[in-house]
């Protein structure tokens, strides 16, 4: 995979988790007890053997830069290649920011063109999975495909109306794609991960830009379905799509099933992240914890059930945490009770307070709030 460069496109799904993505890009959203969303795709790329990764950032990317810095934690601080942050260029003609992902690609074509790799893997950061791209890349070459799109087949009862659905022929060739409509029964949902030869992408982006199109899916992929050989590659493992508060909550909670925990964190490689040098978790005399995932640096004196605690959370005596997600450095004071709650970083729930959300509508407490 040394011949593949990665482009992580953060143009997708920016405003879907309003409360949690106000001050940070979706890619920097904390997930899984000690990670941020971007850790998963970055680790996947690195574990697959890729050494050159560019990140197309949009706005609010300070939090992300803080997290990534030189890329050392992902072994991407390299003499040649490594990690590149590709900021958006201010566009004189449009005041409303970026018009679409194609503009972002177009503005950074020089980086793409000058890189050594022949192929590209384009992906977002909003799908959390532990996936090795080697097989998909082999498939791409074996099929002599122009573009390979990774997809995941969903169950019949999943709601797919907002996703891009692929219609594939038996050999995998994509015959149609678009949003779900009555004419297709396909449950194959695009993971928005694309393998493509670099020269072809450059050509497509230039062409698309010249014709005034801005949307990668609509103006680059769908328009060229008949002209290009596009194939779908099925991914069968765990994939959590983070596109709403509800999904964010649900997919975090998934990790409390040991087989999912195992799959996401170990299956085809470890997940890297920025380290914080926190001490191990301390359970004091009265601590009780069940079916719970807890990151280093926490001090537990109360009771924690079916929950995920990020680094450095303090749960005081008599406090009770149930079905909740507590991000970094939250503090739950004595005898406070929280249930179905997502606390963003540095939230403090004071003594004796009682907070309760609904299972399918968890209560979100904004960063730094003192309740």
């Amino acid at each position, binding site marked *: 995979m040394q011949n593949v460069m990665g482009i992580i496109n953060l143009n997708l799904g920016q405003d879907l988790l309003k409360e949690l993505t106000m001050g940070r890009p979706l890619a920097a959203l904390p997930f899984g007890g*000690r990670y941020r969303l971007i850790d998963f795709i970055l680790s996947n790329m690195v574990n697959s053997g890729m050494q050159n990764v560019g990140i197309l950032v949009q706005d609010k990317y300070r939090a992300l830069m803080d997290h990534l810095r030189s890329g050392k934690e992902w072994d991407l601080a390299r003499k040649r290649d490594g990690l590149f942050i590709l900021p958006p260029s201010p566009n004189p003609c449009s005041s409303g920011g970026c018009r679409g992902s194609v503009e972002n690609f177009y503005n950074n074509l020089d980086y793409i063109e000058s890189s050594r790799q022949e192929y590209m893997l384009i992906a977002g950061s909003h799908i959390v999975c532990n996936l090795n791209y080697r097989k998909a890349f082999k498939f791409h070459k074996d099929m002599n495909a122009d573009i390979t799109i990774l997809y995941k087949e969903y169950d019949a009862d999943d709601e797919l109306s907002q996703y891009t659905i692929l219609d594939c022929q038996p050999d995998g060739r994509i015959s149609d794609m678009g949003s779900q409509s009555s004419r297709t029964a396909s449950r194959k949902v695009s993971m928005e991960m694309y393998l493509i030869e670099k020269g072809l992408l450059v050509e497509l982006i230039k062409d698309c830009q010249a014709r005034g199109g801005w949307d990668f899916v609509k103006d680059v992929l769908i328009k060229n379905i008949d002209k290009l050989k596009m194939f779908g590659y099925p991914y069968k493992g765990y994939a959590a799509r983070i596109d709403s508060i509800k999904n964010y909550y649900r997919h975090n909670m998934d990790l*409390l099933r040991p087989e999912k925990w195992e799959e996401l964190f170990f299956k085809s490689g470890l997940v890297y992240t920025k380290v*914080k040098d926190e*001490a*191990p978790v301390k359970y*004091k005399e009265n601590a009780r*914890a069940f079916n719970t995932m807890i990151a280093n640096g926490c001090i537990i004196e109360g009771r924690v059930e079916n929950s995920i605690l990020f680094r450095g959370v303090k749960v005081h005596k008599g406090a009770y945490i149930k079905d909740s997600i507590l991000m970094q450095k939250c503090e739950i004071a004595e005898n406070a009770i929280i249930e179905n709650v997502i606390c963003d970083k540095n939230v403090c729930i004071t003594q004796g307070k009682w907070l309760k959300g609904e299972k399918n509508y968890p209560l979100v407490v904004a960063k730094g709030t003192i309740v």
Partner: protein
Amino acid sequence: MRKKECIAMILAGGQGSRLGSLTSKIAKPAVPFGGKYRIIDFPLSNCHNSGIDTVGVLTQYRPLALHSYIGIGSPWDLDRRDGGVYVLPPYAQEGGAEWYKGTADAIYQNLNFIDMINPNYVLVLSGDHIYNMDYSLMLERHKKQKAEATISVIEVPWHETSRFGIMDTDEQGRITEFIEKPKEANSNLASMGIYIFNWRLLRKCLEDDRKNALSSHDFGKDIIPKLLMDGHRLFAYYFKGYWKDVGTVESFWEANMDLLADEPELDLYNPNWRVYSVNPTRPPHYIGAMAKITRSLVSEGCSILGEVEHSVIFPGVHIEEGAIIKDSIVMPYVTIGRDAQIYRGIIGRKSLIEEGALIGSINHEGICVIEENIIIPSDAQILENHMISKQKQVG
């Protein structure tokens, strides 16, 4: 290289034979401690937190684990352009190769390293003590007293004085008497093995000591008494916090257990004095629905389905349902099978305790040590006070 005021030399060569099978494959400073650390993390982190950016680590016995662990020093922010960490093993010279004959000889054999930097002061540390200490305060004191050497001291229980270098001081803190491991002491001020020397003086003293055939080339036995005898200004620096020499199985076990107190003397959670370490790439640990954990430290990557009480659990440990771990230390990547029981055990890295095995017993004082990479078979019973190593497998 830029001139440095003070550099640190960490003596990390010791075998630590009193730790038994814990150090049969690695040097004592590399022994895991406190749920995620290794012993040497403490002096290295202290250096970083005290603003000392040039550190020599003197290794000797089984150095591989230590060398690969320290690497370029980036976990302790010691990958500096000017200075940083230098690993200094013994090396062959014109007269042939020789081992470090004593603590002072180890420094002597690295004169060229210290000369290269030419600092004003040299801080000598041990790689096998557990404590958080701000060396910059000690250095300040050293300069203020116009001392030529400063020894950090701590009050120890009277019955333990025979294990330490014991000293007497006058009201200003100037050392009047120093006796290494006295049979009968008239003070309980013990040397912590932490010294600051004026480099010029130490250099000369080490060269003299080298020529002395009768010397054992040890700081406590030779250098300090000599300096004292020659009338140099030696001062004591009183240290108040937690400090423990983890030289024996018992003291190693105790120091780990000390961390489990509700308000331990050694605070690992102080954001202004972090203990740095090589962090494992592991997810947060998972506590199963039937698990029970009290008074314990648990690190990342563990999955715990059984019962853990008053124990220290390192990264990547898997504990099956029904297993009971009590008053024990479980090192990285150990697997403990269903219904196994461990009381007062120290289980080495990557060992496997199979289903139903029993280690130690619930009402006994002795500590069982299982070396790394050992398989304790199903239903084996290992009594208290045993050390199980590769040579002496059971089953």
